[in-house]
């Protein structure tokens, strides 16, 4: 195996095959080589930049799989560092690249790599960068990928301190994570006079699907743009679907009935499809009138869902 110096020299070789051979075995190098590779991401020669990037990828991927460290050591009959120790070392080196003394490209690379292998221990250092306008998108991307409540709490913290123009992005991350604890923040955002922020709150709340206690203030539908109106009704449907999934069909019925009576065929179809999944006599009664709808798409959709409802469920 090459020394660190030899390895870095090969990464910077004029010969692409030498560079390739080096990056192919990068995972065998000590994680302490990561900062030097990071600097090479800014090299003048594009082939060197590529080799450094691929070497970093291979180092990170080599520790990405959860492995029982004890079993690994036992199977290999050796006592050196386990994979999870190496993973911690790799994460530590990546975190060291987040400092303001590093170039932006290095910090972005580190955040993207951390999104793949970091665990909750790394969250505080990552979340510290949330206020940085040049990095905030990457920070949220990274936190969104790290499982666990700690990263959701960090996203909530980022939301509280974010500029208004960035709050929708953070709300989207919380919605994507279905972070239950973010429900109240989403409902608060829905009260905003800024339609983009209000709809971001509504969309996130719909995806989380948490129970709504107390006063609920929806965005002013009539004041919304056409696309926001679409998102409004889609969010209502998602929220209703979530209630059914959580065993609360009573929370869904008022929404489904309202959407069922909309003029547009696709909203009626969506309501029909959703109601059919409830599968009760009440559901059948709600769908029945649509079997004679003047709109052929609604009619056919109702017929098909009716047929499915009347078949015994498959094992």
């Amino acid at each position, binding site marked *: 195996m090459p020394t660190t110096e030899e390895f870095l020299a090969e990464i910077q070789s004029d010969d692409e095959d030498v560079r390739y051979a080096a990056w192919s075995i990068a995972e065998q190098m000590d994680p302490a080589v990561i900062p030097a590779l990071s600097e090479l991401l800014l090299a003048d020669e594009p082939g060197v930049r590529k080799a450094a990037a691929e070497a970093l990828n291979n180092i990170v991927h080599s520790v990405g*799989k959860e492995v029982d460290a004890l079993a690994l050591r036992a199977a290999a009959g050796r006592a050196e560092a386990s994979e999870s120790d190496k993973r911690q070392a790799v994460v530590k080196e990546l975190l060291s690249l987040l400092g303001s003394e590093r170039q932006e490209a290095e910090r972005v690379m580190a955040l993207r790599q951390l999104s793949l292998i970091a665990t909750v221990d790394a969250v505080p250092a990552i979340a510290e960068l949330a206020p940085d306008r040049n990095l905030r998108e990457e920070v949220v991307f990274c936190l969104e990928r790290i499982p666990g409540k700690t990263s959701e709490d960090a996203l909530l913290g980022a939301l509280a301190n974010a500029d208004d123009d960035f709050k929708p992005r953070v709300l*989207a991350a919380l919605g994507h994570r279905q972070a239950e604890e973010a429900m109240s923040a989403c409902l608060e955002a829905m009260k905003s006079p800024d339609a983009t922020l209000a709809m971001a709150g509504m969309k996130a709340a719909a995806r989380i699907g948490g129970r709504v206690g107390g006063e609920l203030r929806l965005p002013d539908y009539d004041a919304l743009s056409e696309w926001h109106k679409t998102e409004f009704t889609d969010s209502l449907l998602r929220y209703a679907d979530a209630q059914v999934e959580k065993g609360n069909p009573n929370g869904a019925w008022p929404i489904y009935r309202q959407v069922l009576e909309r003029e547009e065929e696709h909203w009626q179809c969506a309501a029909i499809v959703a109601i059919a999944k409830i599968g009760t006599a009440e559901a059948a009664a709600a769908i029945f009138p649509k079997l004679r709808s003047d709109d052929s*798409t609604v009619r056919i959709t109702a017929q098909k869902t009716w047929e499915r409802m009347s078949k015994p469920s498959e094992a």
Partner: protein
Amino acid sequence: MTIQTKTSRRKFLAQAGATSLGFTIVPSSVLASPAPSDRLNFGHIGIGGRGRRFLRPLAQLDEPAVQWQNLGGPGDRVLRPALSVALCDIDASRLDLAATAVGGRPRLYKDFRRLLEQRDIDAVFIAAPDHWHALMTIMACQAGKDVYVEKPASKTVEEGRAMVTATERYGRVVQVGSQGRSQETAYSACKYIQNGQIGRVREVKCWHYENPRGDWTPDSDPPDGLDYDRWIGPARHVPYNETRTHGRFRWMLDFGGGQIRDRGAHVMSIAQWIMDADYTGPVSVETTGEPHHDGMYDTPQEMTVTYEFKDPDWTLIWAQPGEPSTEIEARYGAVYHGDSDRLTVTYGDRHTTDTEQKAKDYKIPHGGVEPYHSPGHGEDFEDCIRSREKPIMHIESAHRVATLCILGNISFRLRRKLEWDPVNERVKNDEEANRLLSRPGRGPWHL
């Protein structure tokens, strides 16, 4: 509704149409009153090389038969009139070209959401870059449009499943552009194999030539007229580079994914269809391969992906370059190895799809297996807009095919075998691989 019934109904509709004068008019007795509009209105999002092929110009509106280009089928259909009424592209030059080709007064947009708001559009054709397919499809469903979206269906497994959910939630028709299943020769191969003519299939070996390497070009400012931020959309930001955009994005893992995602979506779509695996997936995926040692592109130069399926047990292999068939010369395709014989199916897209004569000559015996016989990919889509049936390349099947391609690339990147749970769509015991099954959206672009 059985396949037999569906085929018969479609034949009826086609025959009813053929007796009309000029336009194809569906008798109102076929469907309960009132009869649907005679004309379909299409919107188009992404009007580059591929997207232009879907345009329905005003000049062809009065023609008695408009055949879809390169989309297979026996070509014996008389289609309904359709018109492209709305066009969208983030490249102003492409928008202008398309508007001229269509003629009349299509409405022009740079923001696809404005196009989706247009109420008189029945269906949209999405031919934007791969990383936009999922979100545009989902949003089109939300807007009540049926969708024809180019393959591959999605960039991530999460996106694909979200497309399936949206399609089902809104009762929409979504056809994905892996038109191989609509090719006559693919149908011949399918009926031949599904009726046991090569015995039980143990292995399907695909071959395809290597991925290109890509020269180094410097990053630059995007050209005037191109909304590059919108081009990037939900993907992670990279500086503009002409070698990474129009058409060539497919050689970058972040935007495309190489030939496995491009042509693999065709070749493996047919394999999945023939093997009746549209609602399942492999239990393991293992990729070996080598990247280009230099150049801009990061998709592998050569690769071999082995997919193991269970119950029934069979193996699917995607190989670049692989072992071309000795029966039919072609740049890519698949050989199906059965207990008693084998069969080659080449290509899987366009009208160049071919198979061996023995399959073309085969007649299904009484009581044999009859695969669905598509009238043509575009025709099938238009039929389903009216019938609300699932088209031949419906979104669930396309999602499963895309998943094969995605997992092949993940295994390549991580340089390890993946144990896959096709029911829960998760990788077993591999945290990093599971994080790669999704990708948080940039800016306002989220699932």
